[in-house]
């Protein structure tokens, strides 16, 4: 799958695994945290994405653990996955910078971190 067709959910899943391997529910929680609760991954969506990303070599199973009688399979970001995420992040940052600059030129005040003090422009 090329960069432009990766969805926001996939972007967040890759981002959730940058710092450490996580199991399924760990990924769900981290994605919710990264998106300020806006993205709540459903299990069917999560495992569909994990199958695809594992097949593409962007993620790999890390280890299996049994906790409280339940199987937890951890996934980690591969080097290829990190490179793909870096490419996505750069592309999105470039788009955001252009959008921010144009909005400022138009005189639109930007809330939050993109406001007068901060910004990506």
């Amino acid at each position, binding site marked *: 799958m090329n960069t432009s067709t990766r969805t926001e959910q996939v972007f967040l899943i890759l981002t959730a695994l940058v710092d450490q391997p996580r199991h399924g529910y760990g990924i769900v929680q981290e994605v919710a945290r990264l998106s300020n609760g806006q993205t709540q991954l459903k299990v069917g969506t999560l495992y569909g994405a994990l199958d*695809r990303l594992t097949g593409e070599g962007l993620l790999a199973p890390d280890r299996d653990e049994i906790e409280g009688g339940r199987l937890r399979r951890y996934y980690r970001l591969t080097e290829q996955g990190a490179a793909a995420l870096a490419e996505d992040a750069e592309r999105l940052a470039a788009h955001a910078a252009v959008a921010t600059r144009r909005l400022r030129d138009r005189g639109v005040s930007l809330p939050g971190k993109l406001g007068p003090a901060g910004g990506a422009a």
Partner: protein
Amino acid sequence: MNENGGAGMDDEDPADIGAGADVLEARYRRILTLLPAAYREHRGEEMISTLLDGAPRGRRWPSIAELASLAALAIRLRVGAPGGTRRAVAVGEILRRTALTGLLSLGLWTGWNGVDNLVVLWLERRYARHLPGLTLESWLATSTVPPLVYLGAFVALLVGWRRLGRLLSVAQAGYIGFAVTRHDSFLVLSDRMALFALSLLIAVAAGSAFHREAPRMPTPRRWLVSAAGLAGIILTVSGVYSALAFPPSPPDAQLAEEIAGVVGGPLVPALAALFGLSRARRSPIWPAALLTLGAPGLLIVPRAVIIYAQGKYENVFVGDLFSRSLWPGMPVYMLATEVTLAAALGWSLYRSRRRATAVPA
């Protein structure tokens, strides 16, 4: 409170909570039976962990959203999503070809009618006003919107605008469903059923097989060029035919009727059968896709058999193939095409199995 924020549940009896979790787990396991067995064996236990970890404390029933998400995953896995079996990959390929070929066929068919209508309108503007209840705008809309929807869905699915393509594919089924249930429809019931079943099949095939994890169609440019070439030929022939046939004059109308008899009769089924046969040597995918696409057409066969048995075979069966009816001889063509494609599929499957089990010398 658990890590999922089961606020307000702290006063519950732990035994009740434990029993509730067991009930919920059993229900999740039942839902997971929707998934293919091999996938469930590989993923089932970790999915159960993730589902139970994410369920608020005290919940006894799976949420509708989780149920829908798992059902959608089950469908995707059966039509070739990553993680599915080889058979599922093949089913996905078959359904994608079924959907695209169906959309293109109906696009060209409605396009033929559309061009016919537009030529008639251009030659004799008052024509539209002569039909009761039909305004110029509705005449133009019924001439142009259906081919644009079908061909738009075809192009959208090919180039990767899947959401739009699926939406248009479902919309066409809704439109056909509405059109064939109208009391003033001029088609007989079996023809209406066949048309609706075909549009429904296309909607289901497009909706299920062009999911977000489906692979892109190989060689989309070849599909687009072939479709553009076919559309150019068919719509030009339609325009010429309409110009010859209107206003009606006996010699020209006779030629036009004969062209229409071939195009609306044996031409498309014969092309489908020949194409399926030519591809059967390489793989069973195309014969299977065309066989699937033609299956709703068999709904018009029983009526033809009944009428033939009653001796009223005018406009229906052999001996009257080119009469001036809507789909003259079509039950025969459909049956012959489906039998040919089924034979091609059987032969192709036999060949591929033999190749797979052949011991190298």
